């Protein structure tokens, strides 16, 4: 009897989790299923997979250069992630391992940049890149995104757990400072790199406003830009649109699912 009551106590918790999980997953399911249906069926709220996937693919590839947009988005997301991990990890390491008062002050100043809304810097950045002839250049998309105070913070906080004995031992062994970082620090901080990588990749892939401002030429567009253009036509084919949205979402969803365990570990390590 008491065990039944004890079990019943957990019901509201599971109910709440269940409702929220459905709320979270339903739009994703709706997106995936609609990609296989005709526009009519999407508006008719058909919630079962249909047979229109290939027809939608054909229509989508006819309307937009999807492969090129996927390539552009991939180049931006991968380029940003690689450079950001490199620059922010070495900075976070520098702040923590070579700790000094001056560096603390500098970190405080850099953190102020979090409060600067991107909208505020967008116009001058556009002017500068225009002057440099970098409008439509992918570098113009990448450069403003590679050094962020939050990422530096993430690495700095996580570096606290890096044992200083290893550092001393490596120095005694004659390793120079840069190879200590590359050969000892990087491999031990894998979870932090995964967390930082997931966040940066997602943000870069999904970013819309800045690429929209700086990539003016019609042929140079990212996946988020492509799907917005697709939806802006006079007649929207909802099946085709949902397929494009699905294609735009899959890479980040896959990256997250593959790295999610280390992602959670990395965030936990940073919040200590």
């Amino acid at each position, binding site marked *: 009897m008491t065990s039944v009551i004890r079990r019943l106590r957990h019901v509201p918790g599971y109910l*709440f*989790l269940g409702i929220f*999980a459905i709320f*979270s*997953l339903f*739009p994703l399911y*709706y997106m995936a299923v609609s990609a296989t249906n005709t526009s009519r069926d999407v508006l008719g*709220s058909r919630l079962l997979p249909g047979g229109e996937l290939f027809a939608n693919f054909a229509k989508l590839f006819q309307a937009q250069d999807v492969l090129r947009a996927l390539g552009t988005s991939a180049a931006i997301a991968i380029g940003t992630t690689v450079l950001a991990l490199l*620059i922010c990890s*070495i*900075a976070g390491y*520098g*702040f923590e391992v*070579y*700790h000094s008062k*001056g*560096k603390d002050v*500098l970190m*405080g100043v*850099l953190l102020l*940049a979090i*409060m*600067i*809304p*991107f*909208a*505020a810097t967008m*116009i*001058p*950045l556009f*002017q*500068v890149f225009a002057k440099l002839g970098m409008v439509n250049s992918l570098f113009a998309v990448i*450069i403003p995104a590679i*050094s*962020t*105070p939050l990422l530096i913070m993430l690495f700095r906080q996580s570096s606290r757990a890096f044992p200083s004995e290893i550092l001393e031992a490596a120095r005694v062994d*004659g390793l*120079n400072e*840069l190879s200590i970082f590359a050969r000892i620090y990087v491999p031990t901080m894998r979870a932090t790199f995964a967390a930082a990588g997931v966040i940066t990749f997602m943000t870069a*892939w*999904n970013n*819309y406003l800045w690429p929209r*401002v700086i990539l003016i030429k019609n042929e140079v567009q990212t996946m*988020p830009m492509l799907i*917005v253009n697709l*939806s802006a036509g006079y007649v929207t084919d909802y099946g085709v*649109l949902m397929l494009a*949205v699905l294609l*735009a*979402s899959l890479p*980040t*969803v896959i*990256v*997250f*699912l593959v790295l999610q365990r280390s992602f*959670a570990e990395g*965030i*936990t390590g940073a*919040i*200590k």
Partner: protein
Amino acid sequence: MSALTATREGARTGRGRRPPRGEGRRWLGSDRRHNLTGWAFLLPAALLIVLVSFVPMIQALVLSLQTGRGTRLSWADPLWYNYERLLGDEIFRQTLVNTFIYLVIQVPIMLGLALVLANLLNNPRLRFKAFWRTAIFLPCAVSLVAYSLVFRTMFATDGFVNDVLAVFGAAPVNWLGEPDTARFVLILGLLWRWTGFNMIFFLAGLQNIDRSTIEAARMDGANAWQTFWRVTVPQLRPIILLTAIMSTNGTLQLFDESWALTRGGPAYASMSMSHYLYEVSFQRNPNFGYGAALAYVIFILVAVLAFIQLRVGDKRD
């Protein structure tokens, strides 16, 4: 003062010297060499932040004091003309009100939900934990414009949500065509996209809390509710503060959802400040000066709200 000298010294030494490489550099004391290596390591990141955030911020201030179309700009007369114009701009006022509606309604609901969800997930006896966590975080992997278009389709007049309402015999709602419902759909979208994101932070925070403090409270006869409020929440305070500041910041900079989900409409009823800034700066008659003034107002709001939150959140009782 010391900040300035420290930064300048860092910049000078960093530019002049590479990280020392063992032999041949013995003339530098090892402490000093150690310190210089540190500066060299953080120089690229610091320099980039200065170049893409601080310098443009100053340029934006100069721009906000200028008027003119496109690239032909001249000093405004009076200098604060753009700011004065903002005060009388009805559309700006509307977008300011919209943004604060989103802030005041959405952020507390989202953080509350995220906190409750994280607390449920932190229970060691919970089953299917990995499934719940993945399901609730998954929306964060989807781009803002992508989910905006999914919501736009679901809430179309002849879309899924109205079909469900019809099953229950309710009249269809013109979700995106009425000011209040358009704002409601936008808030719902924000809750969908960001609750899991904040939950992950709370979950990480909870895992760093010593469980014995919670068990001790339960032993002393506190119920689950009391334990949650009196023991768990106070220990999570730094993280609640972090998420509150990040969410406030994000809401004030809201753009994608306003752009792709409601398109700011009907009329300007659901438009965010950043969306209006984009319209002023890059559409129709581009007016960089006016846009920059608007950007500064957003910046000041972000800074003031962050300052208030830090003051309230850091108070010890």
